[in-house]
């Protein structure tokens, strides 16, 4: 029984990482109806920005919670800039273009970043320096949780709550929701849609950057194609929860994390990656709008 609860804890900690990436997908989709395939690569860049800033600031000499926060902040700002640049250079010129053009561009940007990463950082895995390694183990009735995972889980929850606050309680959030509801009408009402879209990209990318650093801290092996699988899985999680829906993305990601954990633990470890895509096919077959998504009627 203890083993069972242990798997639940493991699954949730894995799911919270997917959730941070899935949020970026779902926000951009909500506002632009664009699946930003380059999002997984922003996550990868977050990990690398984190690694290089750690080396540059020598954060590894003094592993502590504050080092982790400094690293997170740098990676989030760095990724926000990356997200802003991607949007400006790749997607903004295509604003009026058919959706398929933008989608193909997104795939192109994704591949461009993967291979530039291999060129610049080298394709062999890099070691992410230890910036926070708490000793000991939390033990609740036999179920153990390493404090590192606890802290990472806590940070993800806090980041998600901040996002929720921004979207539902600020002017920017209201503008984002308005643009997502009706782009043209929002711009007629005086909302600077281009700026709102930029902010959305920056927010989503900052979350991906945070996820990159946290993955680097927990699994200290990073490489330029590390974003592909988590990116795709986060995308599946977003679709599963109902793409465009914030709560849906989080629930979808936690579900995916848990089901992966149980699949590996009790059935077939080799089907780990297949699971996400099987889930995607099932969702698209039986409930294409996802768990929390609502079908939007398109006027013709």
């Amino acid at each position, binding site marked *: 029984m*203890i*083993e069972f609860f*242990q*798997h639940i804890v*493991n*699954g949730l900690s*894995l799911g919270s990482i997917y959730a941070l990436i899935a949020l970026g997908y779902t926000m951009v989709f909500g506002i632009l109806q664009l699946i930003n395939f380059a999002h997984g690569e922003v996550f990868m860049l977050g990990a690398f920005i984190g690694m290089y800033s750690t080396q540059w600031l020598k954060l590894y000499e003094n592993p502590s919670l504050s080092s982790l926060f400094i690293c997170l902040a740098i990676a989030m700002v760095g990724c926000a800039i990356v997200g802003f640049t991607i949007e400006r250079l790749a997607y903004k010129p295509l604003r009026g273009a058919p959706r398929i053009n933008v989608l193909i561009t997104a795939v192109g940007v994704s591949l461009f970043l993967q291979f530039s990463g*291999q060129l610049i950082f*080298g*394709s*062999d*895995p890099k*070691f992410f320096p*230890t910036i926070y*390694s708490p000793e000991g*183990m939390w033990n609740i009735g036999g179920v*153990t949780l*390493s404090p*590192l*995972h606890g802290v990472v889980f806590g940070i993800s929850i806090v980041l998600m709550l901040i996002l929720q606050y921004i979207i539902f309680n600020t002017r920017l959030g209201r503008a984002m929701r308005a643009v997502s509801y009706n782009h043209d009408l929002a711009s007629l009402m005086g909302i600077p849609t281009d700026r709102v879209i930029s902010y959305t990209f920056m927010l989503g990318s900052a979350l991906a950057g945070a996820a990159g650093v946290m*993955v680097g801290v927990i*699994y*200290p*092996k990073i*490489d330029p194609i*590390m974003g592909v*699988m988590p990116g795709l899985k986060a995308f599946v999680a977003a679709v599963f929860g109902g793409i465009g829906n914030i709560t849906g993305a989080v629930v979808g990601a936690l579900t995916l994390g848990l089901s*992966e*954990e*149980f699949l*590996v*633990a*009790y059935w077939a*470890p*080799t089907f*780990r*990656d297949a699971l996400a895509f099987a889930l995607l096919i099932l969702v698209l077959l039986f409930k294409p709008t996802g768990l929390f998504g609502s079908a939007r009627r398109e006027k013709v």
Partner: protein
Amino acid sequence: MFNIVKVTGNACLALLYVLKPSPPFWGEKEGFCMKQSEKINARKTIKTLKWVSGLLLLALLSTSCTKKDKGASTESDEILVGEVLSMTGPEATFGTSSNSGTLLAVDEINAEGGIKGKKVRVITLDNQGKPEEAATAVTKLITQNNVTAILGEVASSRSLAMAPIAQQYKIPMVSPSSTNPKVTEVGDYIFRVCFIDPFQGKVMAKFALDTLHAKRVAVLRDVKNDYSVGLANFFIETFKAGGGEIIADQSYSAGDIDFKAQLTSIKAKKPDAIFVPGYYTDVGLIARQAVKDVGIKVPLLGGDGWDSPKLVEVGGQSLNGSYFSNHYSTEDKSPHVQSFIKRFKEKFNIVPDGLAAMGYDGAMVLFDAMKRAKTLETKDIRDALAATKDFPGVTGKITMDENRNPVKPAVVIKVVGKDFKYQETVNP
């Protein structure tokens, strides 16, 4: 160049006309009912067609030309040896280490005056750690560079992708450290200079039983990796025969980063040791999660795939007290080994790991065979390789058996902090 393309293009077009006299598909016939723009389009099509067909024909011609060149290199004053390794990618240190070993061997053989009066030159191609790239690279080396022999690969999966091609062109291939038995079974032109996994699995199983007194062992293997799957099977075979019990047989795929699910299941079964026959990048992460996240305190065991300075970089203190089998130990006191380490340090300024020693031995065995061969024809080199007997390698005496595998001792290494300490030698 321009003219050749144009002429060949015109020739092709004329040929098309002859072969297909009824309405040409570029639409010249309907001249009067065509709009001006369509006419321009049609003209453009013809132009592109000329260019494309011209280029195609030229490409054909040039490939047939290179084919004619084949064999010319044997008359030149150097011996070309091709080398395919993972210089980048997840197992980059496998490639870079082996390559350093090869380069040292080439320097030494050329300093001695080369082989049969010819200098040796090595062309190294990177396969990024991918079997399909390894196959492309070996084809390129054989068909375009016309190499006389192939060195590589380290990983068995990639050697298995290369071997059928080398065998098909009858080019001798020497793998420095692919331990999976299937590699040399591909054909009579495929050799290796390392021991094979049935032996390596036996060494670790015996070590677990006799030295660690482990009775219950769990296995965690990489299912994407021929080497890992094979080694796990051979380990289980011997361990069970020796009275041990395999309490869990879990797997993962290379590139996974989260192993907590497998490790949690293993921990619940209370093993005495865990056998992880993977490559160093994954093993580092597995060890880290086993100790720090899941709280496993038993030693991990592994094979020569662990041998890399990167192992402890990722794994950190978590690997302290783990054991793996390897080809040689830097603590070996024999003058032959120490002299190799000294020469290697002078050239590259680092201590050679096991794969560097294997790279050196692989190249040296090949050069030795080339010296003994009657001529530098690939057939003669193959025969000389097969006749290798008591070659004094850094990693032990190398004698090819009838299956082109050497019979050699293995050493067991203990990870202590960031160092690899010699534990014991096991003879076959």
